């Protein structure tokens, strides 16, 4: 019986540097892939959806005494007896922190999946970087770069990643400020409590997080049967199941319970939680995250607990 899944590059758990180099090789390709994905998503970055300083038309409203005359839209006012003012949409540069989980467990790719989880995470992150850069937002990789604005943000981020070397397992979220968006692509396979613990910082700072769970279909459906020895790619721990098929039901229960708990927690905080399977298209997740970021959501909500 052929194996159901394998770690795509056979790497030693300790050899983070080698893996970083491997990732560096991947980055240009992933950048191209990210561009392709971005092109399939609705192009353009929507504004803040409120009146303010910007370039795009937002609305006509009746002139109010005391306003600057220069703001009157004469072309519109000439049509009837009222005087209108042309409002513009507020467009302000915004900081979005992007982070993809570099841990060894992300290297997993099963037979039914088209790409490994890490590659999918990087594609998504770079695609978002591209998307945000085009929209003029400031992007950053926690612990790797400071927020920057550039038309070629994705390339710059990729360059940073290429030269980064070993990356820490947890992002350094100290630099994240209020009103920032944080995009975290990971498999979130750690116990929920641990995950909540390190994400709690963001909640306290009032940042809005978008969690993208990259899931392999084999992890979710557990297609194993018979006598099977399971190996953890992170710790190297081994488990032998006498009859794996008997574990399936319980496992799936626990697996989905973890996901639901995280999703519920995110919802309570006003965050978004998106699941992307590696056998599906990356653009699906991209659209969802994009929508979630575009949606007006309470930055002020902060920590309610």
């Amino acid at each position, binding site marked *: *019986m052929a*194996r*159901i*899944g*394998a*770690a795509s590059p056979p790497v030693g758990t300790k050899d983070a540097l080698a893996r970083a180099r491997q990732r560096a090789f991947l980055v240009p390709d992933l950048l191209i892939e990210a561009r392709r994905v971005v092109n399939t998503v609705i192009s353009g970055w929507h504004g803040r959806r409120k009146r303010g300083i910007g370039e795009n038309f937002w609305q006509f409203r009746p002139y109010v005494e005391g306003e600057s005359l220069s703001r009157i839209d004469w072309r519109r006012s000439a049509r009837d007896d009222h005087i209108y003012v042309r409002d513009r949409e507020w467009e302000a540069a915004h900081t979005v922190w992007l982070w993809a989980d570099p841990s060894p*467990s992300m290297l*997993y790719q099963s037979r039914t999946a088209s790409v490994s989880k890490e590659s999918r995470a990087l594609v998504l992150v770079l695609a978002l970087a591209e998307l945000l850069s085009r929209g003029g937002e400031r992007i950053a990789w926690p612990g790797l770069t400071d927020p920057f604005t550039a038309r070629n943000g994705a390339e710059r981020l990729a360059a940073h990643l290429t030269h980064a070397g070993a990356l820490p397992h947890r992002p350094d979220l100290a630099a994240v400020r209020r009103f920032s968006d944080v995009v975290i692509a990971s*498999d979130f*396979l*750690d*116990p929920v409590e641990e995950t909540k613990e390190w994400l709690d910082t963001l909640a306290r700072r009032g940042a809005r997080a978008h969690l993208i769970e990259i899931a*392999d279909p084999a*992890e979710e459906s557990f297609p*194993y*049967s*018979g*006598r*099977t*020895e*399971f*190996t*953890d*790619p*992170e*710790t190297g*721990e081994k*488990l*032998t*199941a*006498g*009859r*794996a*098929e*008997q*574990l399936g039901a*319980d*496992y799936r229960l*626990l*697996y989905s319970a*973890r996901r639901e708990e995280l999703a519920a927690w995110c919802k309570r905080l006003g965050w978004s939680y998106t699941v992307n399977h590696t056998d599906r298209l990356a653009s699906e997740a991209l659209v969802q995250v994009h929508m979630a970021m575009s949606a007006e959501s309470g930055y002020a909500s902060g920590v309610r607990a």
Partner: protein
Amino acid sequence: MSWLPLSFGFPAILWGLLALPVIWWLLRLTPPKPETEVFPPLKILARVLRREETPRQSPWWLTLLRLLMAALVVMALAEPVFNPREKLPAAGSGLALVVDNGWAASPDWERHVATAERLIDDAAASGQRVLLAFTAEKPNADIGPFDAKAARDKLRATKPRPIPTDRPSVYARVAAALDTMPGASIAVLADGLAAQGDDAAFGTLFSKGPASVIWAMPDRIATAGLTKAENQLDGFALTAVRPSSDATPRQVTAGAFDDKGRRIADAAITFGAGAAVGTGLMKVPFELRNDFAAIRIDGENHAGAVRVLDESSKRRRVGLISQAESDQAQPLLAPLYYIRRALSPFADLVEPQSRDIADAIPQLLEQKPAMIVMADIGNIPEPAHQKLVEWVNNGGLLVRFAGSRLAAAGNDDDLLPVRLRTGERSLGGAMSWTEPQPVTEFPKTGPFSDLAPPSEVTVSRQVLAEPTADLGERTWANLADGTPLVTGARREKGTVVLFHTAPEATWSNLPISGTFVEMLRRLVQMSRNQGSLAASAEGQVASLAPYRMIAADGTLVPPPADARPLTVGRGPVPVTIENPPGLYGSEDGVVAHNLLGADATLAPLARPRIAAPVTEMRYALNETHDLKGPLVAAALALMLLDTLAVFWLGGMFAGRGRRDAAARGAGAAVVLLAAGALFFASAPHARADDSKPGDDQAIEAVSKTRLAYVITGDASVDAISRAGLDGLSRFLVDKTALEPGKPAGVDIARDELAFYPLIYWPIDPKAAMPSQEAIARIDAYMQQGGTVLFDTRDQYAGGIDANSASPATQRLRDILANLNVPPLEPVPSDHVLTKSFYILPEFPGRFNGSPLWVEASLEAANPEHRPVRTGDGVTPIMITANDFAGAWAVDANGDPMFPTVPSDPMQRLYAYRVGVNIVMYMLTGNYKSDQVHVPALLERLGQ
């Protein structure tokens, strides 16, 4: 291993069992290899998996299974044998096995076979050839010596026979065969019953100085046999015998069965202490007794315990007398015609030789009939009358019919039930007002009380009884006007019955009604046979086909192939393989042929004095079982289970989701199939080999049509015959569609003749006269449809004198004197032989002039009817003097060997045509004769 009947061929191999702990250790250390999978969410899985311990070793039951498998293989290699038996001493150059398979061996036959098989096995193990003879087989049965396989086949093919053993002749054959195997050991598997000639038989058998003798006797011999079953007045008297060695008082139960095998009566047969003969009486009503078909002793499954009953125990002899001239031209008017027709299905009819009443009645009474029917007999001469009265008083049933003679005769108080008025009464007719009278209800007192009165019967003439006070109670049937039709009266033990009308259809139509038959049947049932009739040499000789045979186990079965018709009337026929016990005849009437005669005794067989060392043996079933095969099979089955278990552990069946159940079902089916295959593989296939010696020649003889000639013993004559038939065969191939095979020379004394349509017999006066048996064979061949062409080859050898006979002719006469030769005639001009292929006016061979003699056809007397000859008969004999073979004979080049006389090529051609015509006549019969009808048939069809 005294506590377990188990022995091992190679006990040393059992030390291999010591390796089992090592195997155990190895098995425990090597668990089945798991699939390895990388699985990131291991922490989640670990929470699930915590409940199940991770097996690092194979499960204990799998280990046990494998250990068991190893142990079984070791045990199987040690060749264990369950219930081992001791081998019998193998001495001498061979083994002569003499097995009794008569009726007494039948109950224990399986043990006999098992014992014989063991002996054969032992003989085979020491490489001896086996002489196997059965004492109740055909006298020409093959006795070997065989190799072990053939002997075993023959042993299994042989069944016990329901006939007595014939030890003297079989032992003599074995003794003769032992000449080729000096110093062989002899095994006698006896059935325990002594028979006539045993001493001489054993003397012959052991005369060759056997190396050793194995003597096997059954523990128990057939305990009871029925010797007599007699229908008496008050019941069936049964007589049974038991072996004289059995002295305790005993009672056995016998049951009577009807012809459908239903048990309809029981009786106990009691043997007194020390008595070898026991008797019993089966008291059942007379009607029931007539249904008895067989009587069987319960619990005895051999042919001796069964006695079939034929009609003689219930069928009555009925004497018929009439005074009328028997005119064969008018049988329907003969007085006895209807009586005979009515009685013959259920009674034996006896008719006197003499026409004279005074002689006829004593002749009849000698036959001791149960009933005498006298049709219209008036006065009976005195001595005969006296005898008849005595016979009636002793229990005879006299039935008289009226007629003109009786009506004219005076009264006879002794032999008529009522006083008669002289003369007869006529009812109806042109000059009378009276009507013919019908029959009314039968009176309740008479024997016909249960018959329905026939509505269609009318009586137009009758004799009248004098009215007396007791006429009513003597009347058994009445006419509508109250006059008696049948009267009857007791005369001491006997009865006299009078039908007041004639036995033919002139006085009434009673004789042609079904009621007449029923009435006569009632009367016959009333009668009793007056003693048994001794078989007499001048009695009727009949050959009765086998109908129902008693099998060796006492059941009634259809006749086997080797049963021959039973010839009755020539005294007692012994029970032989050709006449096994049973019923002979057809379902209309049978004759019982029983195994044990009335004076039979069952004597146990005593072991004779034998010079050689004797090993006594008992019969026992073969209880030795070689356990190697079952053990290996069990190991294989365990291996299969192990494979299935490994698949199961490896998740081969599960995890397929919905195919799970199907896979399990398939697994079960595989196990079942394997088990079934093992079972059937172990079941031995024994097929009886029914080939016989001489089959090859027979198949060769019948696979092509072949002409045959009689081997006279004179080489030159035989060579000419062969060359002649060869030449004729060539001519047939050239001219006709028939392609005969090579001519066959037959020895009429030995060879089977039935294969050849035509046998050419050149008469050679110098050759020895054929034996009576050979001539009898030729006779049978001719009776069964073969044809013999006699050729005296002496057309010009005879003298001038018409009465002088050449030596060949004289020899032919000698031969024909012993044959049933039909009337002969020279081939008439319209005979089929003249036109069966060629139109031939004469039948020349090397010589010309001798007529060809054939069987005279039916219309030889009136020549004008000749063209339309009837009859299917092909003449069984042809006689010529023209030396056909000489004319036909050709050498290897196909040139004629002998000149014709006179030398004329056309004559040779005619001779060949004669041969073609003869062969065509042989093969097609009178088909050509029918051809003469074709024009007439076509004309009738309107063409």
